[in-house]
């Protein structure tokens, strides 16, 4: 087993080496090709050549939209978990705040009857999610470790219960006729309609690219260095003059912002938001995606989020000895996670530092025991 691992590792190192040593233009060319590939992906003329990759059980464009939302969520959660090292078990709660804010402000089912357009509700949703992130983070981020995990878990569950039980949030009946994002083609037809999921996917894809550029710059700045130091040793970070609380709150609020963005986009696409969209499991899936991909690495988060969401959808409609695989999707993920934790705890595409941190912690365990 070790030899297989070493073989995989050496292969990965060779790829990583190649990538880092490649000339700048070549790296940009590869990135551009990947981006073009993903923009082209939802077109039948393109994906019909891709063999078993397109889904059979459901519309591939719709699947890609779902996958892109998960990727956006994974990129956001990666800031919190991967960069700052804060365990957030209720990240999907921020998605809910974003989606419900849009729903309440725009839907005719809402008691407010404000009937705002989507684009007007969007900034309100973003600000509200950030505020909820700050409100949740302020009391808990002063404490260490486990408290945050418990409080965030409670937060997501509280939102689910509130959405299910309160009249204002409409329970399972939900909010309908949530307006779509604005924009129309030259012939007057709206870009964002009911039938074609592709424009939504392209919109989310574009936002992912923008968010990734922003997050990457942030992570390479003083803010990023502060996050890494907090993740590696919070006391030491403080002793070096890093205002740890402030930066943890920053990470938490930035993550919340991106979660809220994903929720608002989802509401604008789906037309309909109800408490059934708020499964606790979603938080866990996103966390699993980040860990699977390689916590602390943006590319890892993208790959993890994409892979997890895609595989879940891929299972739909596939029967195996008479049972639908989709029904067993979570068992499968549990299994994959367990295997990952044993053989590759740093994730598929780990962050260089994270690998060293894991080794360091292992050494500590040995020394301590």
């Amino acid at each position, binding site marked *: 087993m070790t030899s297989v691992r070493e073989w995989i590792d050496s292969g990965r190192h060779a790829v990583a080496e190649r990538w880092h040593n490649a000339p700048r233009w070549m790296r940009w060319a590869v990135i551009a090709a990947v981006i073009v590939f993903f923009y082209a992906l939802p077109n039948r003329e393109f994906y019909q050549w891709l063999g078993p990759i397109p889904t059979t059980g459901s519309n591939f464009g719709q699947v890609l939209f779902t996958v892109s939302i998960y990727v956006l969520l994974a990129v956001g959660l990666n800031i919190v978990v991967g960069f700052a090292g804060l365990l957030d078990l209720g990240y999907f709660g921020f998605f809910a705040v974003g989606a419900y804010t849009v729903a309440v402000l725009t839907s005719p089912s809402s008691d407010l009857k404000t009937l705002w357009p989507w684009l007007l509700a969007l900034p309100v949703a973003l600000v509200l999610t950030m505020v909820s992130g700050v409100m949740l983070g302020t009391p808990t981020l002063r404490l260490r470790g486990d408290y945050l995990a418990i409080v965030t878990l409670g937060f997501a569950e509280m939102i689910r219960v509130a959405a299910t039980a309160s009249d204002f949030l409409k329970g399972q009946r939900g909010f309908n006729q949530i307006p779509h994002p604005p924009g129309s083609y030259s012939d007057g037809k709206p870009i964002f309609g009911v039938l074609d999921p592709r424009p939504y996917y392209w919109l989310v894809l574009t936002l992912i690219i923008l968010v990734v550029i922003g997050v990457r710059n942030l992570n390479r700045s003083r803010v990023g260095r502060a996050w*890494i*130091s907090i993740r590696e040793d919070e006391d030491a970070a*403080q*002793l070096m003059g890093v*205002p740890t609380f402030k930066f943890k709150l920053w990470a938490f609020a930035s993550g919340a912002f991106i979660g809220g963005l994903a929720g608002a986009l989802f509401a604008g696409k789906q037309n309909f938001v109800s408490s059934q969209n708020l499964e606790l499991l979603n938080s866990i899936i996103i966390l699993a995606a980040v860990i699977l991909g390689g916590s602390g690495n943006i590319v890892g988060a993208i790959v993890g989020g994409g892979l997890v969401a895609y595989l879940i959808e891929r299972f739909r409609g596939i029967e195996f000895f008479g049972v639908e695989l989709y029904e067993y999707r979570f068992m499968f993920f549990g299994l994959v996670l367990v295997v990952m934790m044993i053989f590759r705890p740093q994730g598929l595409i780990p962050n260089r530092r994270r690998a060293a941190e894991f080794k360091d912690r292992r050494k500590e365990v040995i020394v301590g025991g």
Partner: protein
Amino acid sequence: MTTLLEIEDVSLLYGRIKALHGISLTVNEGEIVALIGANGAGKSTTMRAISGIRPVASGRIRFNGEDITKLRADLRVRRGLCQAPEGRGIFPGMTVLENLDMGAYTRRDRAEVGKDLAKVLDLFPRLAERRKQVGGTLSGGEQQMLAVGRALMSRPKLLLLDEPSMGLAPMLIQQIFSIITEINEQGTTILLVEQNAQQALARAHRAYVLETGRIVKEGTGSELLHDPAVKEAYLGVA
């Protein structure tokens, strides 16, 4: 002689457990002051109170004429107070250079930081050799040096060192203590916590003895070095 650090009747609690029972000590500018005591006496706790990692229950801490009792830890660093934490308190995933750079986190004078980096690498040639290596893969001694070097990068007025000789081979202990003296001679005031009382007292201008959260003795380094009770309890001489 001006007083740089003044601790007055400071108590500190861990939950219900009182770890410091009203301790008082002073550090004057230019001194090396040693704080010695057995394992669990409260030496690291005293350091935590000074650097602000743990809030004090009562008492006052003054630094450079300012009351910093309630000041946040990161702001104390900006005032010129920097601690090299006990044991492996370095950033394991960062390289030696990145660790040292974190030491200068609060500073904006990049040119001066560059000069200080050269000085630190001069002081610790081992670190210079391993500048690109990640901290977690350094040996225990190298990690200690890195922790001291990193604290120096903040250009502190007062350097707090928590057991810099812990777990080191005898030769390395000698080396780290001469470096401490050298740092002091270059103008940095030092508060040194040690279990290695012999070395600490030999190098210190003044020293305090801590027992179960109380200061039980103080004097110059050589006074304590020749004190019969100290000899028996901390120097292993009957």
